């Protein structure tokens, strides 16, 4: 009886023990399941297509080219490998430019009429490119469907535009978001690092126990404050400050985000680095002092090199925190999805993009899948960060065993 009872308990324990593993696997499964849906699909809006004149030699266009054509950055077919014809844009509404109302009478109900009219327009204009509903695609001899390159890893990572609701083709270029994330996070770490290390060294080596007993809870509290509060503070205080100091049109910039992120990453850096510094055996420090080294010489020649792997771990963990942070960044960076040129421009990070756009994206749409793909990227980055940290701290424990 007792045996069975114990076996049951052990079973329950085992089940719980594997929950985290299961969760990670589930996260991977669900993120990638949704995220993978983005690839291999045409980026045009569902139910729509792009057509040209039958005699046009162009068969295939990339999303970039289509976007440039419809943004009227490309005016001639020869720029995309076709004949020397200027490009004529055609959208459904444009039908009324070609025909009078009488000619189009009854078009709302008569599908065939619409189809034939569109076909006629396409036939008449050699340089036309038409963005039309796929139902209206005529089996007509005069028009030809343009094959649009599907979204691939190349265009996803290399694409310089993130414009998921653009027509006729959505732009899913992660590059600006990636850059935004890296700029903001790295600058945040650059700001946080000197303060974090200085405070860690100060707390571990210099401060009297009294000062430390004040600093320690302060740092803990700093770690406990919700990110949205930091975001709020940034919005109310830091944003106007940055705007004034640099005389900018808006204060929501990458720099603002970096400052807030720096404050938020500090507790992680300080705590981990302080632990690492405290991990230096007292006897080693005493040996240095006993040789006539000053306290400062001991710190920078002995303690810091000894704790270097722990400090590295602290920095990487801090970067991980900064990269994954969502709300505060969302509130203060301005969220412009363009490749940044200066840190004083508005920027948009990957987590902020997800948070801002997921609410608007219809489930199952390309946009929705694209946001999950962003989630995948985030997940992979943090996974790499974590594995690196564990590798470093693993090495550290091995060193200590010696």
């Amino acid at each position, binding site marked *: 009886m007792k045996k069975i009872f114990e076996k049951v308990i052990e079973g329950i324990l085992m089940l719980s023990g594997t929950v985290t593993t299961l969760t990670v696997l589930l996260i991977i499964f669900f993120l990638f399941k949704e995220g993978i849906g983005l690839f291999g699909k045409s980026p045009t809006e569902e139910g729509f297509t792009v057509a040209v004149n039958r005699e046009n030699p162009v068969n295939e266009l990339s999303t970039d080219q289509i976007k440039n054509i419809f943004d009227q950055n490309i005016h001639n077919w020869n720029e995309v490998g076709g004949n020397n014809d200027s490009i004529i844009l055609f959208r459904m509404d444009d039908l009324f430019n070609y025909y009078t109302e009488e000619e189009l009478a009854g078009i709302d109900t008569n599908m065939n009429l619409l189809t034939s009219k569109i076909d006629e327009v396409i036939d008449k204009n050699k340089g036309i490119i038409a963005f039309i509903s796929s139902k209206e695609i005529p089996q007509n001899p005069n028009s030809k469907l343009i094959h649009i390159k599907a979204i691939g890893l190349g265009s996803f990572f290399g694409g310089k535009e993130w414009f998921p609701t653009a027509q006729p083709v959505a732009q899913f270029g992660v590059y600006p978001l990636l850059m935004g994330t890296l700029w903001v996070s790295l600058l945040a770490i650059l700001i946080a690092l000197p303060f974090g290390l200085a405070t860690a060294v100060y707390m571990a080596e210099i401060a009297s126990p009294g000062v430390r007993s004040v600093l320690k809870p302060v740092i803990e509290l700093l770690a406990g404050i919700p990110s949205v509060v930091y975001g709020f503070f940034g919005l109310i205080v830091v944003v106007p400050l940055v705007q004034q100091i640099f005389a900018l049109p808006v204060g929501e910039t990458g720099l603002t985000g970096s400052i807030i992120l720096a404050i938020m990453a500090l507790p992680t850096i300080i705590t981990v680095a302080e632990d690492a510094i405290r991990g230096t055996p007292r006897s080693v420090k005493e040996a*240095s*002092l006993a040789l*006539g080294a000053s306290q400062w010489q001991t710190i920078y020649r*002995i303690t810091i090199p000894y704790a270097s792997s722990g400090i590295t771990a602290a920095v990487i963990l801090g970067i991980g925190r900064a990269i994954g942070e969502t709300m505060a960044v969302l509130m203060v960076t301005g969220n412009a999805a363009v490749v940044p040129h200066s840190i004083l421009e508005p920027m948009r990070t990957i987590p902020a993009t997800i948070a801002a756009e997921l609410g608007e994206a219809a489930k199952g749409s390309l946009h929705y899948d694209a946001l999950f793909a962003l989630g995948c990227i985030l997940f992979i980055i943090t996974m790499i960060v974590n594995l690196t940290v564990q590798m470093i701290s693993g090495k550290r424990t091995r060193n200590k065993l010696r």
Partner: protein
Amino acid sequence: MIEAKNLNLFYGTFQALNDISMKVPEKSVTALIGPSGCGKSTFLRTFNRMNDLIPGVKIEGEVIVDDMNVYEKGVDVDNLRKRVGMVFQKPNPFAKSIFENVAYGLRVNGVNDEKLIKQTVEESLKQAALWDEVKDNLKKSAYAISGGQQQRLCIARALAVEPTVLLMDEPASALDPISTSKIEELIHELKKKYTILIVTHNMQQAARVSDHTAFFYMGSLVEFDETKTIFTHPVKQQTQNYVTGRFG
């Protein structure tokens, strides 16, 4: 000449050393023995002011090293520690090469002449009877050699800054018997040049290596005499009880 005069030491309100006066003979080995917590390590650490690092320590009386009270105001502690070398319980080499471990004390004390450093490192390693074992591996990490070698490296490191006094806090307690006897032989050699104070839990070790022995109990110096006397006919009953193992 090193000497303690009416030395009292407090950790907060706890009195760890109680009115200790003791003249340590020069160029000889003096062992400090006594049960755990008797204050012998604390006493040892007053000579290079290592106790300063512990918060809440208060010291009264005088500790004289080279005719100067080290607890006087304005004493340059770094300089004092340079003159008073210290070897610790466990071998604690720095995470540097063997060479850099020995050179460390010189570098932090402002020596930049690489030739001089090289020469001093070699001499110190020879004095510590380690040179022959490591001369081909000076660039190797100090962690790559055995514990006994590491401890001799730590001794070489202490010798490199040319101290007059050498404090040893249980220098062989973490070592195997063979390494221990090597360290003991080394101590025997070193006393020709240095005044050595050694704290040890191991009474036999104190008996073997020292010329004089001081027995501490509950923060007081109970008896201080030639080692032979302490181990053959001590004056105080407490000393007798301790050295015969009939303690408590």
